[in-house]
């Protein structure tokens, strides 16, 4: 219960951080996905069903704060990737930490990629530029932030 309450508190804190200071987080117009980083941390600390529920809630908050015109897209993407995160979390003990991180970065890339693909689906001639100018920089920024954060707060807790 304490972990769930702490997760809710952290969720509200990150939402507020991303809402209030979004302009300060931008590097050349690229923003990190703090919500997905939070979801990665939660997936290694909460039971799978709670992680999936967190993915949905985080996605819904993401859309209500930043993307009201396409509300429902982020919950869909984040619920699906929360499920994949639970699979990585379940198999973390048999995986090499480097491979775990590699999988996490692939999931960050897929999260941005799928979201951008849905988002830009109605625009012609942009598949290549969406990947090059949006998905790739967002993936790099979010991954670097995750790796930097994991130096201070390990993604995989020592006691599970």
């Amino acid at each position: 219960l304490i972990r769930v309450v702490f997760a809710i508190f952290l969720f509200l804190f990150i939402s507020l951080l991303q809402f209030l200071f979004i302009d300060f987080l931008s590097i050349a117009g690229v923003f990190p996905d703090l919500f997905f980083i939070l979801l990665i941390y939660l997936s290694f600390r909460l039971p799978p069903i709670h992680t999936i529920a967190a993915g949905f809630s985080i996605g819904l908050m993401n859309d209500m704060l930043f993307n009201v015109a396409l509300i429902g897209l982020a919950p869909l993407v984040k619920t699906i990737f929360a499920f994949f995160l639970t699979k990585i979390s379940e198999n973390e003990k048999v995986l090499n930490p480097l491979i775990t991180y590699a999988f996490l970065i692939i999931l960050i890339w897929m999260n941005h990629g799928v979201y951008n693909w849905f988002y830009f689906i109605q625009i012609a001639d942009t598949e290549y530029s969406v990947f090059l100018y949006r998905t790739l920089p967002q993936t790099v920024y979010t991954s670097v932030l995750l790796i930097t954060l994991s130096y201070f707060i390990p993604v995989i807790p020592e006691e599970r």
Partner: protein
Amino acid sequence: MLKKLFDFVYIKQSQLAAIFLSLLSLLIYLQNEHPSVYALQGVVAEFLTPLKYPILFLEDISNTKKQNRIMSERLIHLSVEAAKYSSLQEENQRLKQLIGFRETSPFQLLPAQILSRNISQELNSILIDIGKNQGVELYDPVISVNGVVGKVFAVYDNSATVELLTGPQFRVSVMIKPAEATGILQWIGGNQFIITDIPNTLLIEPDNLVVTSGYSDIFPMNLPVGIVSHTEKAYDGFTIRVIGDLLVNFNQINELFVLKVRHN
């Protein structure tokens, strides 16, 4: 039987939860324009709006000096333009009277500040700090000093959501000057737009100005939108595709104006 079902649900709970919540998300995504979804957005917007004011205040202070310098430069340019415009307007009014034209509606501008943006590199919506109480209505055009920014998508008591021109679903009817070719403008990523189905008999050149055509119920005519950068032949051989750059830099917009069009 019931026990088997219960066991199945218990064992597969995470898969079932993922499927259920994905379907729920899909349902919300497909019900985007449902009143209850709007109501939920309104509640969140109204709750969060006051939290942003201290940040806006600090941003305002740091931006004032920079903006003051830019505005002074712009004022000098505009004074020169205004002198030219004044004589042209007099001539225009005289000619309009001669051919019996009715005067177009003047505008009222409601200044607004941005409360939140999308986290995507490209923005499709923003929250502004004025709403119903300040006179904002649904589908009011939103502009910046450089040109068209978007339209009001949802209105709450003291805030409103603006759908931006850089949204994948956004289209605006435009006219390319001086050829007066009309078409539908669509954003294609970055700061670029495309206008398709322009007859190849019309002479469109780089640096031609793109303005709103006034054919839609939302945008009045002659609001600047972009500049033509180049044209391409379309596959059909009879039309061209006009590619250009938007005048507004959507990564740097701070102050906006909601345009109240006074209809005659």
